[in-house]
Every structure is written in C-alpha cells, then in structure tokens.
C-alpha cells in the first residue's frame, strides 16, 4: 500500500513536471478552447470568410500538424503564423490540428459568409486547368480535391491565399519546404502559370 501510494505520487509529479517542461500555460485547455482562438482569422469552424485567409477545416491532421510545427521552428515562411505557433507546445499544436481535421471543409466559392466574390478570372482558370491537368493532377488528384499528409486540398481554397502562396513558391526570399517532386514542377512553371492554377483551384467546388 505504502509503495503503491508513493508510485502514484511519483507518477503525478512526473506528469506535472512533463506539463511544466512543455512550457505551457494552457496544459489543461480543452481542444475546443485551444482551437476556437484560431477562428478569428481562419473563420468559424475553420471555414474562412477572408479571401486571403486559408480555410483549414477538414484538412488531414498530419498535414496541419506538420505545417504548424514548421511555422514554429521557422522552417516555413509565414508573416504571422511563425509568431503564433511559438505560443503553443507541440502537443497543443497536435491537438489543434486534430480538432480542425474533424470539421467539415467549406468551399470558398459557396461560402455563405463570403462578402466579396473571389474574383476568379474565368480565362485564367481555364488556362490554369490545362496546366493543372498536365503538371499537378498526379498528386493533387481530382482537380485538387484529394488531400493527404503531404498534399493539401486545393479545390475550393480562397483565391487570394492561393495567389500569395504560389508567388511564395518562386520567391527566393521566403523559405517554403517542398517535396522533391513538387519542387521539380515548380521550377518548371512560371509565377504566372502557377497563378493561373490558383484561379483554377479557387474556382472549384465540391
């Protein structure tokens, strides 16, 4: 009995120590509590209403977690997410990623909260489709609907966000980690061609 009690105490102490080591002031926060703070930029339930803010609802947890950790360690460029991600422990980032992965994706095109049209240029979208079919479809299958750990959903994402990210891919000033096969494609394509694919993907729904 005596022994058992001290083991329990030790376990509690270790647990408490572990939580403290994580450097968090939010160790006991629920997944909702942690994640709802993101809605101020990424929209209610992770479906953005801002043309430059990406929707994150329903994206694979591993993908979101990977991005968040790259922001946190500085290996992925972002204006503000690098500063935001630093406020959370790795465990909290994982919790947030899992929370949003379980929510339902919403297309920008049909977003009921949308104030302005995404301003997709139909001619550019058509040009973008031709490029995407040939260059991107092998990984970003089904017109960009397909997603997995290393492949973000493209179809129905916000245009302004996609345009910024496409330009970032070619900007030597910003670090954007890419898989080898992605980098090879990006190297081949011009900024204008990448932006045309942004118009195509933004124009997609469902």
């Amino acid at each position, binding site marked *: 009995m005596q022994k058992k009690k001290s083991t329990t105490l030790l376990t509690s102490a270790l647990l408490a120590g572990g939580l403290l080591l994580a450097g*968090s002031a*939010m160790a006991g926060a629920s997944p909702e*509590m942690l994640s709802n703070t993101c809605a101020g*930029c990424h929209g209610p339930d992770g479906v953005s209403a801002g043309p430059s803010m990406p929707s994150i609802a329903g994206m694979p947890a591993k993908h979101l977690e990977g991005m968040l950790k790259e922001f946190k360690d500085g290996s992925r460029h972002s*204006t503000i997410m690098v500063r*935001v991600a*630093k*406020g959370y422990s790795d465990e909290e980032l994982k919790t947030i990623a899992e929370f949003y992965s379980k929510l339902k994706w919403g297309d920008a095109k049909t977003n009921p*909260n949308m104030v302005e049209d995404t301003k997709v240029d139909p001619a550019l979208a058509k040009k973008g489709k031709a490029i995407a079919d040939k260059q991107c479809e092998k990984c970003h299958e089904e017109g960009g609907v397909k997603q997995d750990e290393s492949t973000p959903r493209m179809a129905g994402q*916000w245009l302004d966000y996609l345009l910024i990210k496409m330009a970032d891919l070619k900007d030597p000033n910003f670090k954007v980690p890419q898989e080898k096969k992605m980098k090879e494609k990006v190297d081949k394509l011009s900024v204008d061609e990448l932006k045309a694919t942004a118009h195509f993907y933004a124009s997609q729904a469902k």
Partner: protein
Amino acid sequence: MSQFTRRTFLKLTGGAAAVTASGLYLPSIGRAAAPRVVVVGGGYGGAVAAKYVKKGLPSADVTLIEMNEKYISCPLSNPVLVGHRDMKVQTWGYEGLKKHGINVVIDEVTGIDAAAKKVTTKGGKSFEYDKLVVSPGVELKFGAIEGFSAEAAEKMPHAWKAGPQTLLLKKQLESMTDGDPFIIVAPPNPFRCPPGPYERASLVAHWMKKHKPKSKVIILDAKDAFAKQPLFVSGWKELGLNVEWKKGAEGGKVTKIDVAGMTVTAGDMGDTYKSSCINVIPPQVAGHIAHVGGLVNDKGWCPVNPATCESTLHKDVYVIGDACAIAGLTDKDALPKSGYAANSEAKVAAANIVAALSGKEAGDPSYANTCYSILTPDYGISVAHIGGVSEGKLKITSTAISPPSADLGAGKDTFRKQEAIYAEGWYQSIMADTFA
C-alpha cells in the same frame, strides 16, 4: 425554484435520476433546463460570447442587448478616413445571431443588479439572468482634458468610436487648409486599440502627399512609448511619411484645449498648436454601464479572474473586451484592448458559462490576439499574442511584432504587402465569427 440554475438543481437533487424519481420537482424541469444568459453589448466581444454560449449549450436562453441596430467596426475604420474603405463594409447587422436562436434586443441597459441577478433597460424592460456577460467597450473621458467635452468633439472629433465621428473627421480632413498640420492628441495607457492613433497618422500622412502636400501630421502624445513603435517609426522613414511624434516627456502632453480658437496647449512650456483639423482621442475607462453595475476598480476598468473572465467584484458576471482588466504574471503578460482579444475573451467566458451551467469543468483558458495596422494600402504590420494562465494570472507564451525591415532584406516589400492583404482577410473572417 425558478431562481435555480440547472447546475444547482442537479446538485440539490443528486442528478437526473433523482429528478425523474421525484415528482415534486417535475414542474420546474422546463425552467431549470433553460438557463438564462444575458449579454450586454453586441460588438467584437458580446456578439461572440452570445454565439458561443448558444453553440455550446443550445438549450440556453440567450439574450443579447445592444444599443444600436447596426454595429460599426472600429478595426479598419482608419482607412475610411482617407477614402480607402467605405463605411458600408464596416457595418454589420444582427440577423445572423438571430438565426442562431439568440434573442436580440435593441435597447440600452441602464441598470445591473448583481444581487438580484437582473438587468434593466431604458426601454423599461428587465431581464433576469443566471449568467451575465458585460462587453460595453470604453467610455471616453471627455472632461479629462481642460476645454474638451462631448460638444467639443463635434469640432475636434475623436473618431474613436466608429460611426458619425469617423465621417466628421473625414470631412474635416478633406476641407482642412493645406499647410496646416493634422494634429492627433493621443491618450495615455490603457486605451482601446493601442496602435490606432499611429495607424491613423500613417494613413493620413500618406493621403496628404497627394491631397495636402504642404501639410504634415503631428502627434501630441501623453505617453513616452507606443505599440509597434519600432515598426511605425521605420515605416514612416521608408515610406517618406511626414509624421512628427512628440512624446509626453518632451512636450507632447496636452493640458488644454480651446475649441473656439482651434488650438491645443501641450507640455510644461505651454506650447500652443493651431490647426483647422484637430483629432482629440481622450483618455478612456470601461464603458459606462460597467460603472453603473459596480464592476470597475479604482482605475475605472473591470478586474476579472484570468482563468474565466468572471468579475472579481460580482459573481456570475463576466466582463470581456476593452472594459476588462486581466491581471498578468508580469507587466509583459498583458493583452491589448483589441477586437481579437475581445473575441478571445468572449470564448473563454462562454466556455466557462457553458461548463458551469452544464455542471462540468471548463478547463484552462487559452487566449490569442492578432492585430494588424495599415500604414499604406501596400504596407501592413502586425502583432501576435498567445497566452494562458499560470499561478492564477495571465501568462503570455508568445508575443512579437512583425520582423524589422533589416531582417526581411529583399523580401521586405512583399512581406509588408502580404500583411496589408491579410489584414483584410482577418477582418472578413473575424466578422463572420462575430455576426454570421
């Protein structure tokens, strides 16, 4: 019985099984199952609190009481002054909240009786509550500077509550004499939107280049430092914006205002500044109703429990947004009085209200703030705060302003432009979170 919340009811009866077994309590179940939550103020804080309480506890009877039919957003109202944005895109209604099943009442709350758990309105209505959220924003202390008043603000607008004052200042800017300085009288801490006066200075200076080329901006400041200062100061230089900032210690502190003569007097030497366009942003305290309800401390702000946003002065009353004061672990552990902080505080209060009314534990709070400032349409900067609670006090786990230009190298222009674009994206999303 009708005064019982669901939580106390369940506690007293030992849970749902006992309720069913005891016919005596059955008549009260209907009332006990619909706890009443009243929210005073429908802005960045209050509207979000109402929405998230309803979302977390659909059975709750949630009433939002707001003075105005339409809400006009202060964030991004500075660009309205210089014609970059229209007032229409700053204006929001309450239809979305009504669709969520929130009872929206357009009326002014004139009394809070925390002992009787009741609020009363100018329209003669009264509302009983189990939990009350107060999100009244700020009250401008018109009398704090000699010669200034609410009437004086019709000649020297504050434009610190977006609406007619914004349009009045816009008109004055447009008609000011080219060559006169645009004078901003900036308030002491703490106040709503800490970077706001400096964003305003930047946008006006940028606008002046074309419209009032002989004019410049002079900020007469009560303070010796301000939010995002290094970024504003370097931005003014890079962008060639003619902004002169006079700190409090060096003659910036305004002591007297003469509306008839259109002058302000500042500093120990009593320097006088004259202009056809003067913007006076007075010192601030928590919104008036917080004072009426006995929710303020000796400094005029509402102390709250950092873990819950519940008032430390009255039980079952939660104060959020610009009006609240969350005690920090150190001086650096603080959230600004921003729209995003209000949104975040609203969610902490809502989670605690939902948990309390459901007889559950809310867990630790999590706070966030991001705040963008626009210097020109192509030049945005930001600050981010993330935090929680440690030892019962607010602890900021990460905070930083955007990187200095020197660190951004050749990527600087793109970075600043991206932040200006993200400011608009932030606005649309947070407004959807608030009103949709």
